[in-house]
């Protein structure tokens, strides 16, 4: 087998890596809050707000005053491990946000420190985190809702090669059989998330399952606009299907229940007929006949 890493290339790489380490060392990071904000937006914002309320995970505003920096570092790197250790704060969080489990983050210590610094700064200034990149690249046009519907259901392929949303998600009225049930129902996703939050998720879906699909097959800006438009207006596409409230029961016609019951009885009767000669206990029969 031919190796494509020759000693020369290896040497060059080592030199470059060393140079990069010097150039982008910790102080450089800490002095650039926008870099921390970028990382936060990409890696954390799907689940966490700073000052905007709980999402899948807790709002991080004020977390730096509640927990030590060491604790935060340890928790961010391996939340499940801290929970297993029996840490009371961690177990409380895991319980509150069950069944969500925060995945281990492979962030460098410098990155973590920068993010903690940013959270601390925002908390002190009593400001909320505003994602810089979570914007649509153009206003929504009339045809976007329908185009988003096409993308959602897979009638139009996603340019990055990701699987259609309907594989895992349902939106009321998205199809006769409905969508998948692996992911959450997205019928009212526009209510659950604020606009920048939703756009950010479409840009960088950082949930473990979605990340494994869309991490390497991201949506392009055009698709984000269309899908966003669709989520805002899902009702417009299929006005007959009302978005189900969590507690709304599906209406079942009484005749349908009766029909099902009759069919059950009928098939039991048929089976009873087909296996008429089945053995029903030999010894019991002998004993019964003798009594």
């Amino acid at each position, binding site marked *: 087998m031919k190796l494509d890493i020759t000693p020369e290339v290896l040497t060059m790489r080592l030199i470059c890596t060393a140079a990069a380490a010097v150039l982008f060392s910790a102080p450089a990071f800490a002095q650039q809050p926008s870099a921390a904000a970028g990382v936060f937006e990409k890696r954390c914002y799907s689940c966490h707000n700073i000052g905007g309320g709980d999402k899948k995970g807790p709002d991080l505003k004020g977390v730096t005053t509640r927990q030590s920096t060491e604790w935060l570092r340890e928790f961010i790197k391996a939340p499940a491990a801290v929970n297993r250790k029996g840490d009371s704060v961690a177990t409380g969080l895991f319980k509150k946000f069950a069944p969500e489990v925060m995945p281990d983050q492979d962030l460098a210590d410098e990155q973590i420190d920068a993010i903690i610094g940013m959270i601390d700064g925002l908390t002190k200034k009593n400001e909320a985190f505003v994602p810089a990149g979570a914007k649509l690249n153009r206003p929504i046009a009339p045809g976007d809702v329908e185009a988003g519907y096409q993308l959602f259901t897979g009638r139009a392929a996603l340019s990055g090669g990701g699987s259609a949303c309907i594989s895992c998600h349902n939106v009321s009225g998205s199809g006769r059989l409905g969508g998948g049930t692996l992911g959450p129902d997205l019928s009212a996703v526009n209510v659950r998330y604020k606009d920048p939050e939703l756009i950010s998720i479409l840009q960088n879906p950082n949930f473990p399952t979605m990340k494994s699909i869309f991490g390497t097959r991201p949506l392009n800006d055009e698709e984000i606009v269309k899908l966003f438009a669709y989520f805002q207006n899902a009702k417009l596409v299929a006005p007959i299907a009302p978005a189900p409230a969590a507690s709304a029961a599906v209406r079942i016609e009484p005749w349908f229940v009766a029909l099902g019951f009759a069919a059950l009885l009928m098939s039991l009767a048929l*089976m009873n007929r087909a*296996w008429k*000669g*089945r*053995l*029903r*206990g*030999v*010894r*019991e029969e*002998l*004993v019964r006949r*003798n009594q």
Partner: protein
Amino acid sequence: MDVRLQISMVFHLDKCIGCHTCSVACKNVWTDRKGAEYMWWNNVETKPGTGYPTSWEDQGKYHGGWEQKNGQPDLKMGGRVLRVLNIFHNPYLPKLDDYYEPWTYKYEDLFNAPEGADQPTARPVSMVTGQPMEIEAGPNWDDDLGGSPIYAANDPNLEALTPQQREELFEIERLVFFYLPRICNHCLNAACVAACPSGAIYKRGEDGVVLINQDKCRGWRMCVTACPYKKTFYNWSTGKSEKCILCFPRLETGQAPACFHSCVGRIRYLGALLYDAEQMLPAMAVSDDKLVEAQREMILDPFDREVQAAALKNGIDAAAIEAAQRSPVYKYVKDWKLALPLHPEFRTLPMLFYVPPLLPVMAKNEDGLYDASGKELFSPIEKARLPIEYMASLFSAGNNDLVRYALKKQYAVRLFKRMETVGDIEHATVKRALEQVEMTEEEAESIYRLTSLPTVDDRYVIPPSHREEAMQMLNDDMLAEKGMAGLGFRELPVRGA
């Protein structure tokens, strides 16, 4: 001629005392496990009786064994199409109650019960559910004619008798019974093998032992129905079926199976038989009364040069042929025609043979008097307490002549030995008895020796097991298997595997 070797067995019922030692030995070695508690690979039944599971001989209920359909043997449980249609609901399975619900006792209560006015008792608890239970049946519930009106009176073999004979059978002071120990017959044309949808059951090439591959078994339970002797069992814990393995690990190390080894009455004989597999289909196609003779025809003479050559050609080694020549089974089945198969009409060609019991009358009831001072020590066969027809229903598919011959021969041997040892019987009488069954005095002597004075080596002639040759038959590349065999299960038998 397609010569094959079968490890075959003879049970001498005249010697069986019904002590169940064989059953217990087998239970302790093989079926003392979860899910197998109800199984008795070896069991001893009282005849007349319904046995275990109840009325197993009644194929009108259980649909086991073979039948001839348009000149072809087919399973009684139905052809291929019917078996596929029934695959998710096999309608002819015995219920657990037909075997019995296995139980134990809460012995710890005897020690841990709080002090009270009454003695503590050990309540029976089910070994399936663990709940307290009422014991209503057991694997030998009708032992020694227990519960006769329910069990013995419903023995399917009684159908061969006239109503008068049947009535006499249960008269007081005429009551008679004998014991029938049963294990898997390791049939030549085993119905269980034919019925298995998974192909998990096979007859071992080198010695004819029928085995269930626990890796392949999917628990369809078709074998449970197909086996007319009900000797395959479903393990509800592992979800696989199991059966008697003829203690093949013992056989391979030259030891007799556990039930043979432990037999108190020394009724069991084990040895190799050579048979001609080409004769199998014709032997299955004959009418009921000719079945035993057809099966005997299949068994080949191990002293015949042609047979030996054909055997060697088929990969049976010389030591095995030599063992077949010394086989006690060959003597009982083929030479002396004393041993008969159990229910040959099931047409599986069972390879476990029984010497029917003589059951001599020792006393008679005359004018209300019990007279034990009969002039003749052995009453003639015709006056046997169990009618010949009953024995014929069990051992020869209704052919009375075969049973009569076997009984008369035993009778003649007894007279002969009585004359020799006690001398109160006329030589002419003995000569007449011997002539009736065309037996020489030498033959009578050797029957006596193998019946009454056999050593362990006479009773069990186990051909040396050449596992390495058997493995070679399966796989040419022995090194590929190195270190992979001989360590038991690679995976434990479990549900879904």
